[in-house]
């Protein structure tokens, strides 16, 4: 009953907008929480009834969805991050009307994301990525803060350029394949692999996805959008939106539709390595909390792409595992930034200091997230980076392995400076009154931190049973 992943949020939106405003506004939050939590539940526990039950709706709709292990990992991350974002949104958006709209838009982007990771058609991929993108535009802009509007506009323009590139490619591939489904496009690409047109089409499609995923040199929109968006929206954006619409699509297409292909892989590796280094270096110079995290995101996404380009099974497993970990710890860091921003009223790190003693939970969870980002054991981020570096080393990419591992020093450097300026250090007089953020922020932070620690500690146990099977999506 895969169609439920798309249809249930849909149904929820319809029900929420029935003309019973007073009731539905109360319910909106719970709908969102129930849906995202339910999604996590069915992915983790794999209830037979859900996955194998007769698809009643399937009799009316032919949705052509398909779930493999890669989609499962994505569905899980989507569920978790959406859950966190909804709770943060509840805490940080004061106006009840805005909060209601926020909930609706989050549900819409949930439809988009679930659809994206399940579908099997190139053109549908474009549509669902667009659903996610448009709801993100509105989410970034919906508090009408001038900076946020600018971030949104930048995002709109670059995302539209990405769309144009992707569609151009779709039209060429349509000419070659006669259809847009993954299987027929893959067959066509295989048949005419030496064709310039097909290669060009693949190239611009990948470029489009690079823009969506915020990879260097197409990352211009990302820091503005991430850092200017309202707190809850940055959690959603940084945690999952760009991962689904850019990185997931790249993984899916480069492994089973356009590839595997050696020159494509070479391009991916170069883009990944450049993103790692540039993102990390740019993050070093930032004084705005969320901007730093945004650049850090670019750098971490670089690891995923680098591993993707490496192309061995172990590397791909590492890439997907890092994608999952990254969506967890990066959204955790953004939840922390939301807490700090809400309590101090600024996201400028130079105006903070010593908050650790006032915000113990935020402090502890940000410590976990930062160590995980920098790849310090025993947290989850360490293991995925380790797998990636081992895979690179085994394939003989020594230089890339060194780039990957030395960049984690830079990562450690800027995150240490973040810790120093925000949490560690001496509390200034102005900030004496700061208190811990409310339950809606602390609770998701603790959940995300628990996931990071739990995955990290249980890694040796789950390595064979969960992490290696991720690779089953490869043909």
């Amino acid at each position, binding site marked *: 009953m895969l169609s439920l992943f798309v249809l249930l949020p849909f149904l929820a939106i319809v029900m929420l907008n029935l003309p019973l405003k007073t009731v539905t506004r109360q319910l909106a939050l719970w709908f969102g929480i129930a849906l995202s939590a339910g999604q996590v539940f069915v992915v983790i526990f794999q209830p037979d009834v859900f996955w194998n039950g007769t698809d009643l709706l399937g009799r009316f709709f032919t949705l052509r969805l398909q779930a493999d292990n890669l989609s499962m990992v994505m569905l899980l991350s989507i569920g978790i991050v959406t859950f966190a974002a909804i709770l943060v949104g509840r805490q940080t958006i004061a106006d009840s009307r805005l909060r209601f709209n926020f909930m609706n838009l989050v549900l819409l982007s949930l439809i988009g994301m679930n659809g994206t990771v399940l579908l099997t058609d190139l053109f549908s991929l474009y549509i669902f990525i667009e659903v996610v993108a448009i709801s993100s535009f509105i989410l970034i802009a919906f508090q009408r803060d001038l900076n946020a509007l600018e971030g949104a506009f930048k995002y709109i323009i670059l995302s539209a350029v990405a769309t144009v590139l992707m569609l151009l490619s779709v039209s060429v591939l349509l000419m070659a394949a006669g259809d847009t489904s993954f299987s027929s496009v893959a067959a066509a690409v295989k048949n005419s692999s030496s064709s310039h047109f097909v290669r060009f089409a693949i190239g611009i499609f990948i470029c489009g996805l690079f823009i969506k995923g915020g990879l260097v040199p197409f990352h211009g929109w990302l820091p503005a959008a991430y850092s200017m968006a309202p707190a809850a929206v940055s959690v959603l954006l940084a945690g999952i939106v760009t991962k689904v619409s850019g990185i997931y699509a790249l993984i899916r297409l480069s492994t089973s539709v356009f590839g595997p292909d050696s020159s494509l892989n070479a391009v991916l590796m170069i883009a990944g390595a450049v993103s790692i280094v540039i993102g990390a270096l740019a993050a070093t110079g930032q004084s705005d909390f969320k901007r730093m995290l945004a650049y850090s995101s670019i750098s971490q996404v670089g690891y995923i792409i680098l591993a993707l380009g490496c192309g061995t099974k172990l590397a791909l497993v590492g890439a997907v595992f890092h994608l999952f970990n990254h969506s967890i710890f990066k959204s955790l860091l953004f939840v922390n930034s939301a807490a700090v921003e809400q309590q101090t009223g600024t996201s400028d790190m130079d105006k903070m200091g*010593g908050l650790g*003693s006032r915000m113990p939970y935020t402090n502890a969870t940000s410590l976990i997230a930062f*160590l995980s980002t*920098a*790849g*310090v*054991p*025993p947290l989850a981020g*360490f293991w995925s980076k*380790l797998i990636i*570096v*081992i895979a690179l*080393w*085994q394939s003989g990419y020594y230089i890339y*392995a*060194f780039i990957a*591992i*030395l960049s*984690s*020093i830079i990562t*450690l*450097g800027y995150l*240490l*400076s973040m810790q*120093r300026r925000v949490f*560690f*250090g*001496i509390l200034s007089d102005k900030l004496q009154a700061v208190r811990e953020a409310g339950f809606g922020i602390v609770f998701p932070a603790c959940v995300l931190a628990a996931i990071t620690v739990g995955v990290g500690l249980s*890694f*040796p*146990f789950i*390595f*064979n049973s969960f992490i290696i099977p991720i690779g089953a999506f490869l043909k």
Partner: protein
Amino acid sequence: MLLLIVFVPLTGAFTLPIAGRVSDRLRNLLALGFVLISLVLTAAISMPVFSGETVTSAAIFNNVYNFVLYADGLAVFMAFVSALISAIIIFYSFGYISHYENQNEYYLMVVLFFGGMMGLVFSGNLIFLYLFWEITAITSWRLIGFFREKQHVLRADKAFMVTMFGSVLMLVGFISIYQQTGSFELAAIKSALGTGHLSNLAAALILAGILSKSATLPLHTWLPDAGVAPSPVTALLHAALLVKIGVYVFARLFVATFTVDEFWHTAVPVIAAVSALVSAGAAMVDTDLKRIIAYSTVSQIGFIFLGLSIGNEIGVAGALLYIMMHGLAKGGLFLCAGIVEQNTKIKDITKLGGLIKTMPITAVSFLLCAFSVMGIPPFGGFFSKYMVIAGAVQSGHLWISLTFLVGAFLTIIYLLRVFNMVFLGEVRFAGVKEGSAVMVISVAVLAVLSLAGGILIYWPCQFVLSTIQQLPGIVK
């Protein structure tokens, strides 16, 4: 049993902040208790180990990430020494740290550090060795920045960055070992390598990690800077445990597991010699009490590396003894410095003087520990230093031995200079008291142990000799 030694402090550490909410005393006693449990268990495990067996406990997951704990003589020796010193340092902290904020975090981090240390010592898998290695790095980062002042936190960051830089290089080295042998487990690596050498690249990378952790030239600068930490932490980090981690891993990998290229048997002593001389020189001119002792540590670590890297029996035995004696004595020196610093609020030795009148026990303890570090007979330090240099001469590294003799001579000079300026001379202060009973007892115990270690040298020697019986790769 091994699991208990490692996991009692590791998991116990996280109960300390909770206990701290109940009462300070309970938390302090629990912290000491966790360390003592490990100490007692290590002692218990030493019986079978020293009769020639090894103890292993492993969780096998059918893959490369098996969690293996492995105890041989070397590990037990190291664990015993660290547990002993940690127990004394935690005891000392009861007095020292009670004046400051964030005590919960302090005890959490110290016990966690200790647990990481134990895990590292017993780890039989390179990945977990790295994991525990980083746990010690994280905890020492928090501990160095304990006072939260900007300068301190910056230095804590620096220490973390430098050691992390080394350790990721080491991780790459581990990965290249994995590629060479197909495993991260020490036992499997040992059998896979057989008589072959480890590749030079891997050796160099791992060495970079070790040198950064052990604060050897050129990656030593974080250690003197880390002197801003609370004194028990400095003692823990600089004297007893953190810098010894590098040395231990060197012994564990390069002496006990692999054979490396002949080249390294010359290169490492040279690096060690340069490090010993340069830092001794730095110690001569510095005026900050704790920085001098820290430079002295850098210098003494050189001796240990010398002993381990020349690879003959007497050298390795001397180095192991050195680990123990230096831990005790240098710990004592730092704790004495802590008492001086806390009671006078001054770290600059040119502004101190005549403290022997007001702090007699501290002064005497300082002197005893200093004698041991200098290598004056019959203190413990003498025997270890003697054995290391004798080993070096025996293996034909004559020039290097001479360099180290110069280093030893410099040690005598700068430590006497410190003692002279701080404790002798005219009295500059009125009303300076002796440290609290808990602190004074701790330093006295360390001083007495340093002395006893020398007079009763037979016992530690037996300990060490039975340890090195189990090490391959020693030129007999």
